[in-house]
């Protein structure tokens, strides 16, 4: 299945992209997605377990990801 991965700020710089279409087995979790990202160039500049949002809500490592979900890696926020 395909999920859209969004990258922002320093993470977008690290991976050289703001959007990545990721191919994952069904029943994958956020943790599986993070593992899949590790092989990308620049991924060593991400923290071990970055914050993740699925469909605009904060998610945990064991949250299940579904076909068509919008998954985002959230760098440390700095609003205000």
């Amino acid at each position, binding site marked *: 299945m395909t999920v859209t991965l*969004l990258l*922002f*700020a*320093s993470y977008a*710089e690290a991976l050289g992209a703001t959007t990545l279409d990721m191919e994952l087995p069904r029943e994958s979790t*956020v943790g599986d997605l*993070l593992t899949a990202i590790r092989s990308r160039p620049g991924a060593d500049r991400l*923290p071990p*377990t*970055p*914050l*993740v*949002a699925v469909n*605009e*809500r*904060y*998610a*945990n*490592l064991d949250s299940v990801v579904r076909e068509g979900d919008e998954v*985002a890696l*959230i*760098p*440390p*926020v*700095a*609003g*205000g």
Partner: protein
Amino acid sequence: MTPLPSLVRAPIDPMEIVRAVSNPGNGAVLLFLGAVRQVNDGRDVTGIDYAAYEGMAQRELEAIVSEASSRFGTSDVAVQHRLGELGVEEVSVAIAVGHAHRDAAYAVSRFVIEELKRRVPIWKREHYTDGTREWVDPTGRASAGAPS
């Protein structure tokens, strides 16, 4: 309360936010403005650009306003965050709160800015006098899962 966009690219009009929380039952109105500082962590700053995960940032801002309203018993809470390039002294965020009593107005204002800084997906890149630009990491660390 007049609904205002929570994310804007044009300069924020603080009085518009104040008017949005105006209500004859409010004895206290509090306006918080965050502004771009000339110096941060000892480095000279010439400007900042703000970026956001816009859909989620809007959703989180609305959730914070709604939590503040139910927790402190006022519907007069308005927040606006600016995105894009800002110069020194420009307003990046405005939070207005109206309440019958000042204790609660201060509590709501504080709640909104602290929650905003904790969980709203907005990032800032500082521009320094030497021409470099850097994304600011207020934590120095990152962790998985929802912010606690």
